[in-house]
């Protein structure tokens, strides 16, 4: 293992985070605070409790996941797309490092950043609504798993994209709708039966459900299923990345 190379990539990516602190950390925190003001305080005060908890508290896990998902994808896809775009990828490809080490560096940094962000948002939420985390270990497990999985997913998008439009397309057209429809702001059990069935095809439902369960033991689906689906998606992403590096797809041809 070339640990020094992993360290170099990781620190390089983290340095980029600190350099762009405003857009990396501050802007998601501001937008999440706005969600709390609108949905938690303004509208939430007129909504009755959802499954025994106040609406403001109910949406906290969903909002954290919303940020973690989108930021993981954005960080990782940009992290690998940018060297491809400006050409500095030549150095990564010509260095004595394995694909695994490249991924640990890039995906590790992207996931670290979104985990930090998720915790900051959680702390921010604590300022608006009372928070109680029943299963902190599970909460962290879901947070880390989600951050890693979606950073891998972002890494794949970053390699696939050959223009800035494509880099934005998947997060805008696929991930954001899936997240909003995945139960960030409601329980999928509140949907009519037909839509409820469709909603269960949305992988994000399982992430948010599991994450919410670790807070309040309220879940749309069983925790085991949530964990299984998350691990399943992680496996798919890992297999795709393995294929990308094995064939040199969009990197070496």
């Amino acid at each position, binding site marked *: 293992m070339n640990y*020094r190379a992993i360290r170099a990539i990781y*620190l390089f990516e983290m340095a980029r985070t600190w350099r762009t602190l405003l857009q990396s950390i501050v802007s998601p925190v501001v937008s999440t605070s706005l969600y709390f003001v609108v949905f938690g305080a303004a509208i939430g005060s007129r909504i009755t409790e959802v499954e025994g908890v106040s609406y403001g508290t109910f949406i906290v896990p969903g909002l954290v996941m919303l940020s973690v998902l989108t930021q993981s994808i954005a960080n990782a896809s940009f992290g690998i797309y940018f060297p491809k775009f400006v*050409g500095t990828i030549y150095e990564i490809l*010509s*260095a004595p490092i394995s694909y695994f080490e490249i991924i640990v560096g890039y995906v590790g940094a992207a996931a670290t950043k979104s985990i930090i962000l998720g915790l900051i948002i959680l702390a921010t939420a604590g300022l608006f609504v009372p928070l109680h985390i029943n299963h902190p270990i599970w909460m962290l497990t879901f947070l880390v798993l989600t951050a890693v999985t979606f950073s891998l997913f972002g890494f794949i998008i970053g390699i696939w994209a050959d223009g800035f439009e494509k880099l934005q397309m998947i997060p805008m057209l696929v991930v954001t709708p899936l997240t909003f429809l995945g139960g960030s702001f409601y329980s999928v059990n509140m949907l009519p039966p037909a839509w409820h069935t469709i909603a269960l095809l949305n992988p994000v439902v399982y992430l948010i459900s599991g994450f919410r369960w670790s807070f309040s033991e309220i879940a749309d689906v069983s925790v085991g299923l949530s964990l299984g689906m998350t691990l399943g998606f992680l496996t798919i992403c890992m297999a795709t990345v393995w294929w990308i590096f094995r064939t040199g797809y969009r990197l*070496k*041809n």
Partner: protein
Amino acid sequence: MSPIISVTNLSKVYGSGFRALNNINLDIRRGEIFALLGPNGAGKTTLISIICGIANPSEGSVSVNGHDIIRSYRPARAMIGLVPQELHTDSFETVWATVSFSRGLFGKPKNPAHIEKVLKDLSLWEKKDSKIITLSGGMKRRVMIAKALSHEPQILFLDEPTAGVDVELRKGMWEVVRTLRDAGVTIILTTHYIEEAEEMADRIGVINKGEIILVEDKAKLMSKLGRKQLKLHLAHKIDAIPPALAPYHLVLSESGTELIYDYDTAGERTGITSLLGDLRNAGIRFSDLETSQSSLEDIFVSLVRTP
């Protein structure tokens, strides 16, 4: 001594079907400066990219110091420093950070003294804390060389190192390259500037349309293909070359005022002294004379010219 790089039956076909390299066989000797010459699109950069791990080969193999570049990519790549043709640099990092990053990427422990020496050798020390985006093109080029040298490579690839670099800076780079060679580093450079190859290289390879068409010691190449020409400007026009001068195979210009004599610089006797004596005996006087030598450029152009 075994070659430091050995390229065997290497071919590269791009997805579009374009055959960029066709059955390349090439050995690079330890410690030499090897210049790879070729017109645009000849396959120079593709060849370098495959050796350095940036592109996959379609057929054939490459070994670096005995390590196959696919199977034992770690020891193979660890030996190589690459300076690509295009100015691919980060923008917002400092010179120091980007050069240190390269060293880490190649798995070498931190060594600020080495980085300092590299930056000083390349006259970048004053700029070590500047963001790369603020540097001039020539400085960025040197930053890329510094990145390649940061991990103390045994082999250095320079792809068009002096493109867009002013004359003074180019001389400075040649100096750096010579110092590296003296320290035992093998250097492979591609260039459009034939004077650069002429000035620097120990051996020269010519590549055209994906095939190596010639590999030769520079001195041998120059003498093998290098002709010298003596041109005599005559004081008076003549209509024909006198029969007495036939052994010299002279050529008379159309105007009848110039005589051209080709001779071999490698030969012990050039025949010039006797030619001049015989000219005087024949009563031909000349007002001026000039000699010219075919440059590497002439040789190169004659090699790659499509018949």
